[in-house]
């Protein structure tokens, strides 16, 4: 190490050395928003994946377009621990003068700080327990490039080149990525590879490469892909047959619709006429966005909207209508940290109550909780069947971490044999055969009635859809009996729903363990690591991952079978615990909650600490990971 430190003459330090680690470390990039660092950082993460090594990559970005600090954290883990690790990083790339001191502080003792040494670091007050790897990146760019934009952009590529040497990344993996990234724009390939080489050679000449923390080729990726959840959701909607979208931009949901649109531009153009087999409307607000979705679904198209917390609030009146008038519709909620604008670029699972019971009166909605981009794809496609079968809104509860960060996830699969299921929808022929049609007759006793679409039959099946109380014939009625009859049937419908929704994922030994852990959504990423850490404490636990609401008997049984139940969630008020105790009539005192709500994805450390604290019956007060 001495070479780098001495050659940069910043601080010498031979004392501390972090233990060598292969394929097991965290690297953090500190950049400035709007400087084009994202694509270089992504290239870095993907190169490691191409070497067969699992990574997780998280963008920690401000609500700002240009100028504020932004971080990108990559965890390399051959054990497939893909949640955020938390704590300090083995290596930090400090490219932002604004956050320099914080960034230096975020290096693990004995770790490395790679920085742009074109300007001297102010040396007093600097930590002396880390290694400084100075590289005059700006000066190099100043010399190499004329265009100010290139000078900025290639800085990022140059440090990736340097990291390749420092961390033992195969240069060919990077080269092939550049080739893929600029397919069709070949003139960019050579300059990018050139910039990578500048960094690579500089590092080789000035630092001892590789560092004790490094990567080594493995074969651990299998059929996994590296993609974000919003891409999965948007693509799932294409596969699920969505044709109409009403939406209004809001982080972190915007890219769901953008991805849907870009796949449609490729896959949904009628080959003969060149016309669009879809309609996308950027509405004036979320009220209109959901109105469009409901209108389209009422008329038999598969339609969805995507939003986040503030949009959910605006949509609640319409959600009540869709529940009561029994209109299908899909709503993708990519949750962020609220209330109000809150931390709009940070993650949370804090809309559970506002979605489960969105709207006035006795309302309830179907929620699906995807854990991965693969499930975003599957649930998105599936939700169009579910909403038509159940004739009620289906809300997909993604979150910012899942939606916007790339995750290693099983590849997307589609079964060509699978046919769309429109549920109880009557055709003209079926209507002709029916003696008497009543929109809200529960003929099958499952609470689900038969639907008709406008324009189907010349004189049968028409009715007046409304939010006002009505009888089984869909005629306006304010008779108490009619109202109660209808509400009871809706309850029955939700019982049916609970059997049709994706089942919980349970990991349980033959003899149930003493403790049961209940979790959902992105918390899943931290679970395997949590289990291993608990084992080290000689604790064994069973787990249940909730995939859908309303719950069914599985959850009740799991809770009954365990002496201690922990519910892990990413919000302050233990919202899932509230829903569970209300819906399943379980004494909330029996349900311990572990809640992380600092806006960053939950870590296994946090969960384990929460459990240990509880077991040693320390009062769990505020814990921030």
């Amino acid at each position, binding site marked *: 190490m001495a070479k780098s430190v001495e050659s940069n003459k910043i601080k010498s330090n031979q004392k501390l050395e972090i233990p060598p680690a292969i394929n097991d470390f965290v690297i953090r990039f500190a950049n400035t928003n709007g400087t084009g660092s994202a694509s270089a950082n992504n290239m870095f993460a993907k190169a490691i994946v191409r070497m067969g090594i699992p990574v997780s990559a998280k963008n920690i970005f401000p609500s700002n377009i240009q100028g504020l600090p932004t971080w990108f954290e990559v965890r390399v883990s051959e054990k497939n621990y893909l949640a955020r690790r938390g704590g300090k990083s083995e290596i930090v790339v400090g490219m932002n003068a604004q956050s320099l001191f914080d960034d230096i502080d975020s290096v693990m003792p004995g770790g490395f700080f790679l920085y742009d040494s074109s300007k001297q670091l102010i040396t007093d007050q600097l930590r002396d327990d880390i290694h400084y790897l100075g590289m005059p990146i700006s000066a190099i760019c100043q010399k190499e490039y004329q265009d100010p934009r290139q000078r900025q952009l290639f800085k990022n590529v140059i440090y990736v080149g340097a990291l390749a040497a420092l961390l033992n990344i195969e240069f060919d993996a990077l080269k092939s990525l550049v080739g893929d990234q600029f397919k069709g724009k070949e003139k960019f390939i050579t300059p990018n590879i050139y910039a990578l080489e500048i960094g690579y050679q500089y590092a080789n000449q000035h630092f001892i490469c590789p560092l004790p923390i490094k990567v080594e080729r493995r074969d651990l990726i299998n059929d996994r892909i590296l993609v974000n959840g919003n891409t999965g959701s948007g693509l799932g909607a294409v596969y699920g047959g969505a044709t109409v979208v009403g939406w209004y931009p809001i982080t972190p949901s915007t890219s769901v619709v953008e991805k849907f649109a870009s796949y449609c531009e490729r896959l949904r153009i009628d080959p003969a006429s060149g016309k669009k087999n879809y309609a996308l409307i950027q509405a004036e607000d979320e009220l209109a966005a959901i109105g469009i979705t409901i209108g*389209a679904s009422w008329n038999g198209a598969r339609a969805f909207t995507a939003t986040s917390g503030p949009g959910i609030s605006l949509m609640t009146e319409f959600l009540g209508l869709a529940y009561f008038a029994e209109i299908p519709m899909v709503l993708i909620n990519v949750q962020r940290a609220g209330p109000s604008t809150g931390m709009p670029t940070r993650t949370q699972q804090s809309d559970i109550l506002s979605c489960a019971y969105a709207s006035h009166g006795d309302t309830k909605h179907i929620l699906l909780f995807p854990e991965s981009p693969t499930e975003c794809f599957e649930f998105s496609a599936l939700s169009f069947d579910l909403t038509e079968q159940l004739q009620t809104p289906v809300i997909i509860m993604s979150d910012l971490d899942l939606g916007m960060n790339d995750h290693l996830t099983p590849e997307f699969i589609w079964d*060509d044999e699978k046919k769309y299921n429109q549920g109880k929808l009557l055709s003209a022929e079926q209507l002709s055969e029916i003696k008497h049609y009543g929109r809200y007759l529960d003929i099958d006793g499952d609470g689900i009635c038969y639907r008709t679409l*406008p324009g189907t039959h010349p004189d049968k099946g028409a009715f007046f859809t*409304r939010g006002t109380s009505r009888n089984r014939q869909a005629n*306006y009625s304010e008779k108490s009996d009619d109202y109660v009859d209808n509400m009871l049937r809706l309850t029955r419908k939700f019982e049916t729903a609970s059997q049709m929704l994706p089942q919980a994922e349970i990991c349980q030994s033959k003899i149930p363990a003493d403790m049961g852990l209940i979790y959902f959504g992105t918390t899943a990423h931290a679970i395997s690591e949590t289990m291993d850490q608990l084992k080290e404490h000689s604790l064994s636990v069973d787990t249940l991952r909730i995939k859908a609401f309303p719950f069914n008997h599985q959850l009740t049984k799991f809770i009954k079978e365990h002496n201690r139940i922990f519910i892990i969630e990413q919000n302050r008020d233990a919202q899932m615990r509230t829903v569970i105790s209300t819906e399943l009539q379980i004494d909330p005192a029996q349900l311990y909650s572990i809640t992380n709500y600092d806006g960053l994805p939950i870590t296994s450390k946090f969960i384990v600490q929460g459990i240990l604290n509880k077991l040693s019956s320390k009062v769990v007060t505020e814990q921030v990971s």
Partner: protein
Amino acid sequence: MSFQKSKFHHPRLPVNDLGLTYRDYEGALSTLCAGCGHDSITSAIIQACHEQSIPPHKVAKMSGIGCSSKAPNYFLNKAHGFNSVHGRMPSVTTGANMANRDLLYLAMSGDGDSASIGLGQFAHVVRRQLDMVYMVANNGVYGLTKGQLAATADKGVKNKTGELSIFTDIDLCVMALQLGATFVARSFSGDKKQLVPLIKAAISHRGFAFLDIISPCVTFNNHPKSTRSYDYVHDNVVTGAIADFVPVKKEITSDSAQGGCEDICLHDGSIMRIQKITADYDSKNAMKAIVDIEEHKKKGEILTGLLYLDPTGSHFHEINNTTDTPLNQLDQDTLCPGSRILSSINDSFR
């Protein structure tokens, strides 16, 4: 409650081209106040649809919330209807129209529904150029919530309880003209001779058609101080031209050239025959229509009739380049790209 009408048909009721009588276009028995202007609009719609031989089940009746928004229940029983939420009919209709471009969207709203809570949605559906017939029953008050002043009430008038309208009124025709509606008309529920041809023309028009229909609320806004009472409207309506509707099938006879009539050919081949009352009437000039409306208003008059018409205007699906088949009729083979394409998409993430 809604009450069904008796199904008794007079054997000699006239039938239209589809073999349907007037009664085939009726709805449930109205529960609005006796004499409410909205019921006259209902009967004008029934007459227009019957005479134009519109297949009832190919109509979607859209509305928001209000007495006026209940009206679709009282016409075209064989059509599906959607009584949505207050002020949001335009978005629901937008979605419905996206799903099936082949239906006729007849929408009813109130002045509270469109000029207050739903003003934003109104503005945006106009600029989106949705192919629909948008009718507002303009009574200057909120009927259903018992007579509060609407934003369309003229400045300086009082409602029944004596509350003064102190702010500038919103004129939805003026807004529609500004925002690019290609068919704009104002009429009076008490003047079927004017209203029925306008509804027919609005139906035949391709693109966004807006009809503001003065429709007195007998219960809350029919007093002597009101500018939306039957008496006031009767006494103060003026029109720039009489517009008659000549359906496609009627051969255009030589009398079209008579008396300085101007024929405007609509998209489906039918004709709007304009007989000018004032010499400078011009159905092609939206800016002039705005000025005319405002000038008459200053004199306490209500300018009615066809205010603006651009029969060549576009509409959403044309602009969007949506496929001709209604989207709700595309099958899975057309919509779903299948597993082979998915595997190449997967490869882009490796």
